[in-house]
């Protein structure tokens, strides 16, 4: 009965969920996530529990935000390698200003704006001066990291009673048995809001269609009269701004900022996006897929910690391996699609 009703109720969503080559990587990511959950539950126990899931979301809120930002960039066929370094400088600026007695609200806005500034710089270099995206954002990465090192090379601690830290207060949503509570933090809600807004922007607005069109073929998008220049500038600004927001979220959670914060996070964020089914060459993908990708990476960390047998140093190797596997899967899908 319900199965008959559903197609009429939401045809667009269902047709999108139907397994075809385009959704294969995303479905693979969902399958892997579920498989990891089941494996973890059987092997280590207490994985499918409110507390674990809550912590997964709380610990990876920043990664979800980063991945959403990168989804925009990668959908147009670009890349942003500067996000990790932008987090470092943004959180350092934020903590130092907050400790200097600035209004925490102003500080948070400034932290986000620091990200925007780097986004604008990358966007202008790429759009107006034809610099390859990865070179421009690599330069921004080193610039941000270098500036952060000029500010401070020692960990800066945020005062515990600072307003910024209230973003990571834990709210008990559902009181489970013993310590198995469903908790959330404002950070998680911020990440959820970012995902919802991004979903709306990408799938329901003209801007979103332009992003996909640029990724499909920038030339065609230009010939169709779409605002390519404005859109490409905007996506790098979005990515930078979200990196700034991720810095706020991360700083509020950890309370410490350092010039080496976020080394290698660009790989995590890129991996989340790619695992989530966004084509590295652009033009196809889903924001919600990137969220799944981020959660897969987060869950992987949980499982590695629980297992104890795998050295934590090997995490980047595993992340790299998964990323590579999914890029190869994409190539396979694309080549199959071309043949049919």
């Amino acid at each position: 009965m319900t199965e008959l009703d559903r197609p009429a109720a939401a045809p667009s969503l269902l047709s999108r969920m139907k397994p075809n080559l385009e959704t294969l990587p995303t479905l693979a990511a969902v399958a892997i996530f579920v498989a990891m959950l089941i494996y973890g539950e059987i092997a280590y126990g207490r994985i499918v529990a409110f507390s674990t899931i809550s912590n997964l979301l709380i610990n990876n809120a920043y990664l979800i935000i980063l991945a959403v930002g990168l989804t925009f960039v990668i959908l147009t066929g670009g890349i942003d390698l500067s996000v990790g370094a932008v987090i470092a400088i943004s959180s350092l600026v934020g903590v130092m200003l907050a400790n200097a007695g600035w209004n925490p609200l102003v500080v948070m806005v400034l932290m986000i704006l620091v990200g925007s500034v780097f986004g604008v710089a990358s966007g202008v270099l790429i759009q107006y001066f034809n610099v390859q995206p990865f070179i421009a954002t690599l330069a921004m990465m080193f610039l941000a990291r270098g500036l952060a090192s000029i500010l401070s090379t020692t960990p800066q601690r945020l005062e515990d009673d600072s307003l910024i830290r209230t973003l990571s207060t834990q709210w008990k949503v559902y009181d489970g048995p013993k310590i198995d509570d469903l908790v959330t933090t404002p950070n998680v809600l911020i990440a959820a809001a970012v995902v919802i807004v991004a979903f709306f922007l990408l799938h329901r607005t003209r801007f979103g269609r332009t992003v996909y069109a640029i990724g499909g073929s920038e030339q065609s998008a230009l010939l169709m009269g779409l605002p390519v220049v404005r859109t490409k500038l905007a996506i790098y600004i979005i990515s930078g701004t979200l990196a700034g927001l991720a810095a706020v979220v991360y700083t509020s959670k950890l309370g410490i900022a350092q010039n080496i914060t976020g080394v290698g996070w660009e790989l995590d964020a890129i991996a989340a996006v790619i695992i989530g089914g966004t084509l590295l060459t652009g033009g196809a993908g889903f924001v919600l897929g990137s969220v799944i990708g981020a959660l897969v990476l987060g869950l992987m960390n949980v499982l590695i910690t629980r297992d104890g047998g795998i050295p934590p140093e090997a995490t980047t190797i595993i992340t790299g391996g998964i990323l590579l596997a999914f890029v190869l899967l994409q190539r396979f899908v694309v080549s199959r699609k071309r043949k049919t």
Partner: protein
Amino acid sequence: MSIPASRSSTAVRMVTGLFHQPYVWAIVALILLLIVNLTKNPGYLGVSVNPATGNLSGNVIDILRASAPIMMIAVGMTLVIATRGIDLSVGSVMAVAGAVSMEFMNNTGTGSFGTAIVAVLLALGISAVLGTLNGILVSIVGLQPFITTLVMMLAGRGLAKVITSGQNTSATNESFRWIANGTFLGFPVVFVIAVLIVAVLAALVRRTALGLMIESIGINPKAARMAGIRPVGILVSVYIVSAVLAGVAGIFSTASVMTVEVAKTGMTAEMDAILAVVIGGTSLAGGKFSLTGSIIGALLIATLDKTIVYMSIPSSATPAFKAIVIVIICLLQSPRVRSMFNRRRTRVIIAEKETVQA
């Protein structure tokens, strides 16, 4: 009327010709940096000879020594970039090579000459394996070079940490240490080795058709394939060369302190290499390359590093300076800025044509 005009135009052409040498700006910048140092200390360029050992010492020699690892990765990066690729993994390969050699020497602990040889071979071998992986993924599988080598950059750093179990491993071996701290005819051994390697490679690339083939792949891969050039072999070997040279650089930079700092060795080295290449006038869009330019670029970076330390600016800030330099160079290479220069040049050419007609 026409004679002075033509004379002035040839003068203009000579000047513009000089300035169109791709690496002339690098030389200018190098001289400027040295002048900056000289203003702080007039005796900066002094080189003294130790009468007992015949060793040269001085800031210039220090710069030569520091430039050796950068030269290695810059030369490898030049070839990769010439094929329209990029190798972001050089820094991590340096760390892996250093980690392998240090771990091996630490475990055997004999300190003999043979151990040093095996350590070097092990380091170069594992670098070659990583380079082969890069090359196969780029050429046969057809992945974008930057994503392939980005994965290798982060996974390689992880591999280095796994090899040393996250520790900064040290070892003692005088033969290995000699590579970095020894001297040959008064010059640092690292510099001599680097020059020899570059000379062999330059001969291989420029005295055979290899360099031309690499350039043709970078200029137009399709046309190169139509002309009968097989890209797979060349691409794989280019990535192997880049990784092996990064391994050499890793040996250089760990041998001087006989310690591998897994989180630090080769960090941001990829930026140095890219910077040296673009300073040397090789376009990031691929195609024509200049090994001489990249070597001058490497010297410039070594000088920049030393200058920043000399000016007592914290050395962790150097990436910011380098990023600014690379942004400026990218701007100068960009079509928008170039068209501004070109407009001026076409005006000169038009003036020339008029004089010919007259």
